[in-house]
């Protein structure tokens, strides 16, 4: 449709469309640039960045489960400085939003990374308080409203970019945690990160992953992610970015209806490097078939029975 408008603004973060590549599944964009036109997607959330370079966890780091995968990468990354120096120039060649996903062991880590990114040409930062694959920090903060409030308020004080807080599903009450982020000045929340899981090799009697436990993602988690996106978007007034198992445009529409303003596509990229584009095309097709022209016509439009 000529007049279809998929633009969306997430508290100051302008996206040409609502499909963002999810952190950790898209690297720094280089490799997927061979398969798709990065200019076409709404944004890229880059691999989680830490203050210092991190080696990550020993392999194997991936296991396949029914309609899902477990990963235990453990935030392997070159560090925020190397990212700014070596990766940003490449990424900035493309007309797409760049979201810096960041993780820390301590609150001061988060703040120092945010400060460094203030001067970099990133469009937003996504504070990951939900990585299940590292021993210190991160998920420890994300598991309680108090921890999330602390990280958010501290980062908010120094961060000049739109601030997205990425939530973990491994909690009793995700709305409470989203509210804590909102109260402390988050501009948006994104969810869900992976669900902590375990896969066992019954022949070796050991976990498949060398790091033992890993994070579950992929279609298996979609019903849980949708429920949480619904809960959170009905508890906070800041925009919600939804993810968890999105593989098709229809999946994305479910997330919009549940209340997400934008979506992230993660695990689906692995089997299908064109997943982000196909999700985007699927969204446009659905809207065309329903004679809709703006995302606002569907965002949050789920009617409960």
């Amino acid at each position, binding site marked *: 449709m000529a007049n279809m408008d998929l633009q969306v603004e997430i508290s100051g973060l302008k996206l040409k469309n609502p499909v963002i590549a999810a952190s950790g599944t898209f690297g720094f964009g280089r490799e997927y640039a061979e398969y798709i036109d990065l200019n076409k997607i709404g944004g890229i959330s880059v691999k989680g960045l830490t203050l210092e370079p991190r080696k990550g966890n020993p392999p194997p*780091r991936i296991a396949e489960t029914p309609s899902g995968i477990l990963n235990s990468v453990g935030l392997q990354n070159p560090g925020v400085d190397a990212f700014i120096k070596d990766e940003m120039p490449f990424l900035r060649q493309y007309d797409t939003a760049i979201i810096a996903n960041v993780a820390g062991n301590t609150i001061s880590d988060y703040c120092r990374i945010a400060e460094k990114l203030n001067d970099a040409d990133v469009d937003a930062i996504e504070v990951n308080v939900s990585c299940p694959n590292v021993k210190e920090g991160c998920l420890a903060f994300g598991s309680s409203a108090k921890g999330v409030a602390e990280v958010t308020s501290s980062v908010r004080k120094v961060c000049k970019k739109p601030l997205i807080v990425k939530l973990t599903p491994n909690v009793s009450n995700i709305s409470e945690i989203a509210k804590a982020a909102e109260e402390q000045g988050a501009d948006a929340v994104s969810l869900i990160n992976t669900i902590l899981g375990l896969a066992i090799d019954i022949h070796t009697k050991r976990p498949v992953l060398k790091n033992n436990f890993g994070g579950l993602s992929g279609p298996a988690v979609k019903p849980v992610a949708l429920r949480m996106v619904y809960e959170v978007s009905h508890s906070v007034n800041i925009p919600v970015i939804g993810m968890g198992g999105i593989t098709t445009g229809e999946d994305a529409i479910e997330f919009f209806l549940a209340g997400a303003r934008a979506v992230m596509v993660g695990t689906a990229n692995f089997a299908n490097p064109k997943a982000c584009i196909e999700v985007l095309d699927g969204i446009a097709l659905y809207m065309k078939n329903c004679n809709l022209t703006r995302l606002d016509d569907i965002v949050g439009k789920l009617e409960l029975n």
Partner: protein
Amino acid sequence: MSGVFKDKIVDMKMLREDIFRMTILSEYISSNAMPGQFVHVKCGDDSEMLLRRPISIAFADRERKTFDIIFQVKGKGTGHLAGKKAGDSIDIMGPLGKPFDISESNKNIAVVGGGIGIFPLLFLLNEMSKSQRTVSYLGFRSKDLIVLADDFSRLCSRLEIATEDGSEGYKGFVTSILENHLPSENFDMIYTCGPAPMLKKVSKIAENFGVLCQVSLEQRMGCGIGTCLVCSCKTKVKDKDDWKYSRVCKDGPVFWSSDIIFD
């Protein structure tokens, strides 16, 4: 450069009860494939299995625009693959990964393979020039598990087979023959692929004898193109007393043995 293709299977042969050779029509992959590279294969629907399976390219026929993969049935993915037949289409990404470094200046070459590791070596031998002398060392568990011996015989100057039970050729591990031969052979390069303990041993032998050695590694993969960082292997950091995790799919699967840290 690589791509994602829906290609057509043009031939399917059973080499052993659990090993199949599949010929796939693909102009792009057949003309770009280099020995040591692999393809990332979708073996079933998303709902059946989310991840692709990495399989080495075992042969490329540039004229017929086909390439071959040879695979052993290990689990769900390769099991599904074995059920495919000529005429079926297949969703495949490739060619992927860093190929073997081949140079005509290497005149005397050893190729050491075990298990599923022998398949990429077939492609390697096929692409060697006539002027190069090649000795293949292949290890199997026992005589009745030997595959592709004729193909290897045809492609190399000499074929040495070791079986663990001694039912054919040398009794024991293939690495022992290599070790015995090395003092007398004057190899410029060793290429190896197979189970991790074998690779470690071959690397050690190569180091001891001061022969250059390239190793093709295996690791569980996600994306296959270098973004997800799940397929790591430990490698040395140049000029520093440090190590890092490299990506088997992108920085490898072929590494110089001297760069790898075996645990």
